[in-house]
């Protein structure tokens, strides 16, 4: 996916409004209307369930965030070799990497998750060796399947980005490194990888927001994240609108925090010549 599309489907730092831009007459009016809407929602809709579920909601948000960061980091670590072998690897590495990216990006994540959890998960216990191994207590849980599916998906999308990033590093820089007498490994470690990561950084925040938007899928395989907590509220209170509105608000806040954090982080990295 190109950077432009990621930007079109995920909220990124370029979209952040500046503080001053709020003080325009029509915006003040709109904000007042919005405030009235919020008050109306708070007064006329049912929110009495909220205090009861607050601790569980907090816990759910934590689970969602752990899912997000663990899979984004693991996925990125996988994406580097996947991107690299597609640029320089021999065909027997290039081909599987290419197939991996195409298959994962060409099928819905929900289907992949269910394939892993219900498909593979129902196969494992039929082998006594797996059932008696030390891994079984983990394979019984749902979260390893959620982590696996999200990691694989992130690796495939980011692997495609890393391929472009590796290929886009100017050859002159690599030649200069060679001229300095750097070995292949030193050149990769000191020049190629840092420059490629630097080039991939702007897409990374978009991809991370997209990953956040994918995390609620793990609730469909019994992982209790914030989405699952809200589902529980819906089922126990029979309310439709209120819990879902709150959930949308929670995700908007999470996205906002994520985007601001990324911008602060990016501003610290010198971008000259990128």
């Amino acid at each position, binding site marked *: 996916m190109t950077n432009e599309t990621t930007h079109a489907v995920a909220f990124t730092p370029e979209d952040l409004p500046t503080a001053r831009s709020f003080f325009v007459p029509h915006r003040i009016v709109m904000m007042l209307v919005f405030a009235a809407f919020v008050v109306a929602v708070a007064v006329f809709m049912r929110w009495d369930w909220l205090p009861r579920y607050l601790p569980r909601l907090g816990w759910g948000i934590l689970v969602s965030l752990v899912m997000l960061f663990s899979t984004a980091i693991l996925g990125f670590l996988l994406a580097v070799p996947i991107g690299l072998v597609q640029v320089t690897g021999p065909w027997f590495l290039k081909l599987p990497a290419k197939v991996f990216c195409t298959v994962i990006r060409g099928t819905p994540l929900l289907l992949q998750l269910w394939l892993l959890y*219900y498909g593979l*998960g*129902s196969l*494992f*216990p039929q082998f006594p060796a797996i*059932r008696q191994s030390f891994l*079984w207590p983990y394979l*019984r*849980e*749902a979260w390893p399947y959620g982590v696996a599916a999200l990691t694989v998906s992130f690796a495939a999308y980011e692997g495609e980005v890393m391929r472009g990033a590796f290929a886009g590093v100017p050859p002159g820089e690599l030649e200069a490194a060679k001229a300095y007498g750097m070995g292949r490994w030193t050149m990769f470690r000191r020049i190629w990888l840092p420059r490629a990561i630097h080039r991939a950084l702007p897409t990374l925040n978009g991809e991370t927001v997209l990953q956040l938007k994918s995390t609620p899928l793990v609730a*469909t395989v*019994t992982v209790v994240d914030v989405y699952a907590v809200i*589902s*529980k509220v*819906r*089922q*126990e209170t*029979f309310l*439709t609108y209120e819990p879902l509105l709150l959930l949308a608000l929670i995700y908007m806040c999470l996205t906002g925090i994520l985007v601001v954090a990324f911008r602060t982080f990016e501003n610290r990295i010198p971008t000259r010549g990128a």
Partner: protein
Amino acid sequence: MKKALKVLAVATAIAVSGGVAASAEALKVGVAAEPYPPFTAPDASGKWEGWEVEFMNAMCAEAKLECVLTPVAWDGIIPALTSKKIDMIISSMSITDERLKTIDFSDKYYNTPTGIIGTKGVDIKPTPEGLNGKALGVQVSTVHQAYAAKHFAPAGVDVKEYQTQDEANNDLAAGRLDAVQADAIALKAFLATDQGKECCDYKGDVAEDVAVIGPGVGVGLRKGETELKDKVNTAIKAIRDNGTYDTFSKKYFDFDIYGD
């Protein structure tokens, strides 16, 4: 966004009124969109079959209603009813006080005990002590979930919730659960399958708690639609009296599913 929605609404309205003729007569009957044998399950041609489908057909025929079976996600079936996506729920939904706050029910049309199945050879009893420290699966928004939350979870049972009964059964077979609590008939149907025979056996019925489990299963209706409710109640009574109910029930069960 609202404005855009309105513009869109008008655009779609034109498309809808042109394309889909709204048939006011047919009643949409909501059924949980996942296999729940022997009550409702799709067959290989995509047609829904089972005891409850036959009940629906017999009841609607008796009441002279045109009913269309409409699959809906179980966890959203009550919102679907209240937001008029469907007009009735015939999906093994138990009549409970909690649900009666939001929707209305017809008289009951069947009632069966609640039971627990578990992994073969594991010592499990359908009591809080007998399940202590075990992982128990239940389907969300069911009386079984409410029962487990009230009686088992405080006693140290790890209660896990599933969107569908089928997933809970599958996780029991896959060894992710030690036991599953559900309707005794649905569980016995599962135990009769190859998968069920291999992994599990029946551990017993749970102790009664009418306040949670309710008096039985009824047709879910919107509040205030008394005319429809009367029609449904009359029809249920009529098929009970004229033997239709027993005729199709015999195809599935060797006992009286209506209870007492």
